[in-house]
């Protein structure tokens, strides 16, 4: 009798969860949204990379600066680093591009090297381009300065 009761309770909980999930399924923001499993959602067009050459604001002081131009086919490998042909210390006078930060010359012990440190060689590990794609989910991030200047909540 007791076993039967436990079984019944478990079953009803399970059923409730499933119905709940189904109800939520439509409102959940996923890449597929509510597309049936057998269907293929129409593919969105590929977003364009921003190419304005205008420096973008950083959301927080330590954020790696964003790349405000296209970097299609830029090679960064053993042979060459295309980014450095404009952003290296030796090249900025001609290119008028911002120089790589001095922190990039430090090895992990904090010693300054003559060239950028090998651990900072792969630029696009931190620095990224931006596209004009619509955000998939709403972002509620608030910048620190905006936060400080907000009126205190009552």
């Amino acid at each position: 009798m007791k076993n039967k009761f436990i079984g019944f309770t478990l079953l009803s909980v399970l059923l409730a969860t499933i119905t709940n999930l189904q109800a939520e399924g439509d409102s959940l923001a996923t890449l597929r949204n509510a597309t049936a499993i057998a269907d293929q959602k129409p593919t969105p067009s590929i977003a364009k990379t921003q190419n304005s050459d205008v420096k973008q604001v950083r959301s927080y002081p330590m954020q790696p600066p964003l790349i405000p131009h296209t970097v299609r086919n830029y090679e960064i490998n053993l042979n060459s680093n295309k980014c450095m042909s404009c952003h290296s210390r030796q090249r900025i006078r001609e290119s008028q591009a911002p120089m790589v930060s001095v922190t990039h010359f430090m090895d992990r012990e904090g010693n300054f090297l003559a060239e950028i440190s090998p651990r900072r060689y792969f630029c696009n590990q931190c620095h990224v381009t931006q596209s004009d794609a619509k955000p998939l989910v709403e972002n509620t991030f608030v910048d620190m300065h905006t936060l400080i200047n907000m009126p205190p909540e009552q």
Partner: protein
Amino acid sequence: MIRIIKIVWQTLRRPSAYYSLGFLVMGGFIAGILFWGGFNTALEATNTEAFCISCHEMKNNVYEELKTTIHFTNRSGVRATCPDCHVPHKWTDKIARKMQASKEVWGKIFGSINTREKFIENRKRLALHEWQRLKANDSLECRNCHNFDYMDFTEQSNRAAQQHSTSLASGEKTCIDCHKGIAHQLPDMQGIEGWH
């Protein structure tokens, strides 16, 4: 051997005894057309991409690399084939380049870059040759399509417009000075001007 040469020479020097002048002129004319047509057809046949990539050295290395670039696939569907960039379009320059290219036949026969490893080892040397050639002819092959006179700077990004309207316009720089490795991967860029 010397006797044969002598006979041939004497035959050539003698006026024709059997054939009319008209026959000889017309015959020479028709033979000339056939010869020239054949020569030109053969020349054009070696000037196609299909011919270039009939060698695995070209097909597996440089052609594969070209496939990922804007000169292979792009929004308007205009594409550059091997000879568009590597063979001059003007006849005299083309013949000069074709004569140089006979060295490449030698390389093919003796397999100087017949493996990926050999190709990578020689990449810098080969790239330097092409850069020198394009530098010397003021990027002639680029300019066959990319004509400076018709460039609309307002359609370019700020950086591009800035550089094209100054360095390129003044003739101080030519296309290849900045646009290296646009159609194939780069070799080790150590010591190349304009690189780190």
